């Protein structure tokens, strides 16, 4: 087991290095420079380039960058967004928000999705099944900004105007973190609900038709016990596979949701950084994305083992 995790970590490390190298090279091909202010003269621009070491040959800059990142976790400073601010500080401020929204949406989405799936699977080929399936098709095909704008407009704006009381703030408010996180969380969780409901329904229908559920029925268990003890866990196995990458994309922030609700998260940061050529921020955010992804994959592999004993790494038992 230790050997297995060790190997996984080593692969993860190599993957990270590759991603960063590739990004570094690709960014070299990006047109423009971080110093786009029209008021800057050619010589001032040259001076800035010199100051930040941007005139050094690529291999030298690559080496400095990598050494700093690997030894000190230092991604350098921001060139454009917040001049001379440490990139790590900027990200540290924004990351918790994105993670928080991501986890909230994940929790809400999985719970609602699993419940919907159970309703659909237990009432297969009835109106309930059609309704939940229809709902998940909508959830997957309608882009999240439509939900975001709709929620913000109807529940945030119209409802406040109609009742004179603000139940749901239209945009994110740092002083009302819970209340104002409701709408973005719902908007963000729509896709999760739809995905989980769809996968889980298919799996549940299959598991409910399986022999061991019949045996559980023959034991005299009622349907609630059959579903919770026998069907759910087996149906979860494939769902976990989809949830992994989904979680990463949720935690690293949804650009659209962050824009609509004015949430200062890292999804928003990345897009701004790309538009102004703030190289260090781009690489740093991508670095976090990759780390999340790798950790998530590892976590999911461990989760598999917990859910499905057949996948567990052999511990000398008979097989």
């Amino acid at each position, binding site marked *: 087991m230790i050997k297995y995790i060790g190997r996984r970590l080593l692969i993860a490390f190599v993957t990270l290095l590759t991603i960063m190298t590739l990004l570094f090279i690709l960014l070299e091909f990006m047109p423009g420079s971080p110093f786009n202010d029209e008021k800057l003269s050619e010589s001032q621009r040259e001076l800035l380039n010199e100051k930040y070491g941007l005139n050094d040959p690529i291999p030298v800059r690559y080496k400095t960058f990598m050494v700093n990142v690997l030894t000190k976790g230092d991604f350098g400073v921001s060139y454009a967004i917040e001049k001379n601010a440490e990139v790590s500080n900027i990200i540290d401020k924004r990351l918790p928000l994105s993670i928080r929204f991501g986890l909230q949406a994940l929790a809400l989405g999985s719970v609602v999705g699993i419940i919907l799936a159970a309703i659909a699977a237990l009432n297969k080929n009835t109106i309930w099944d059609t309704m939940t399936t229809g709902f998940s098709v909508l959830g997957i095909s309608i882009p999240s900004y439509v939900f975001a704008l709709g929620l913000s407009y109807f529940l945030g704006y119209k409802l406040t105007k109609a009742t004179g009381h603000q139940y749901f703030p239209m945009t994110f408010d740092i002083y009302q973190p819970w209340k104002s996180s409701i709408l973005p969380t719902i908007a963000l969780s729509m896709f999760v609900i739809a995905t989980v409901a769809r996968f889980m329904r298919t799996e549940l229908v299959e598991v409910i038709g*399986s*022999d*061991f559920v*019949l*045996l*559980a*029925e*023959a*034991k*005299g*268990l*009622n349907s609630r016990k059959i579903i919770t*003890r*026998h069907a759910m*866990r*087996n149906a979860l196995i494939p769902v976990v596979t989809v949830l992994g990458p989904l979680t990463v994309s949720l935690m690293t922030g949804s650009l659209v949701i962050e824009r609509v609700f004015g949430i200062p998260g890292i999804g928003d940061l990345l897009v701004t950084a790309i538009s102004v050529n703030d190289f260090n921020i781009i690489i740093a955010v991508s670095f976090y994305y990759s780390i999340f992804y790798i950790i998530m994959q590892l976590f999911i592999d461990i989760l598999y083992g917990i*859910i*499905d*004993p*057949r996948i567990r790494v052999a511990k000398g*038992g*008979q*097989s």
Partner: protein
Amino acid sequence: MENKSEYNNKNEQNKKLLEVNDLRVDFKTHNGVVKAIRGASFELYQGETLAIVGESGSGKSVTTKVLMGILAKNGTITSGEVLYKGTDLCQITNKQFIQFRGKEIAMIFQDPMTSLNPTMTVGKQIREAVMEHTKLNRKAAKQRAIELIELVGIVNPAERYKQYPHQLSGGMRQRIVIAIALACEPKILIADEPTTALDVTIQAQILELIKSLQKQIGLSIIFITHDLGVVANMADRVAVMYAGKIVEYGTVEEIFNAPAHPYTWGLLSSVPDMANKDIDLYSIPGSPPNMLYPPVGDAFALRSEYALNIDFEEEPPMFKISETHYAATWLLDPRAPKVELPLFLRQRLQKEGAVHGN
């Protein structure tokens, strides 16, 4: 036949445990209504093993599902009754059925490889069944589960308790399934082809186990199979099922030595026999009727070389051959022409020195 009379005496002392009367089950499908069971009647006595034999699609498994109350959603019982302890199991709700299912009537299934939950230890799956119907607490139920694992002949029961199904062999898994079925000391055990998916050597072990458990616990067993070798070995009485009806039933001796229905003749003739290697192996021509459109008259007439004209017009009633032996074929009508048993069967029975002929 001394055996038979002895059995009859025993039979009279024994009480009827389960009685199925004129059971009819329909399945609604996309293509129409499938008449899976068309008036099956049989009874089960205390402590006996009743084998229900027949080919695939004859309605054997559907019958057992009715007894367990686990009929698929598109199936309906259109008429008939299943009497157990004065209750008609066809009339009660699913909620009421829970007190019978698993507790009074238990079942073991065909394929042990898929009938256990892969994500739960086998011990817990047995314990769950124990706790469902008894008032034992967790610890006592666990103790009982370990006893049950030992009872079904698995060594190191405490170790096995903690293992998952994939860590056990097919034979051991079937033993666990049996342990689950026995968890609440049921009165009736339904075994739906319990050895079909197992190796031949393991089959024998499982059959031995079921036999010895029956003696120990006093179970009554309904044994569903298409393997006549197993029937001869296990059953006290045999019911032959064809196209949703029981066409012949009697004691195992009566069915094997003096079969009366042409379908039973066909079934018995298609068993390979080492002693009769020189005769070609018989197979019943044709295939079972499509139960979307059940045939008029005797359902087997189309495949039978002994079919009479009336077989295509009117369903034969159950003719009584002896106190225990009944068959539904017009050949038993006094007006019917005398027919000889098929050659293959006749030769075999003669070789075995059995008495035959009605």
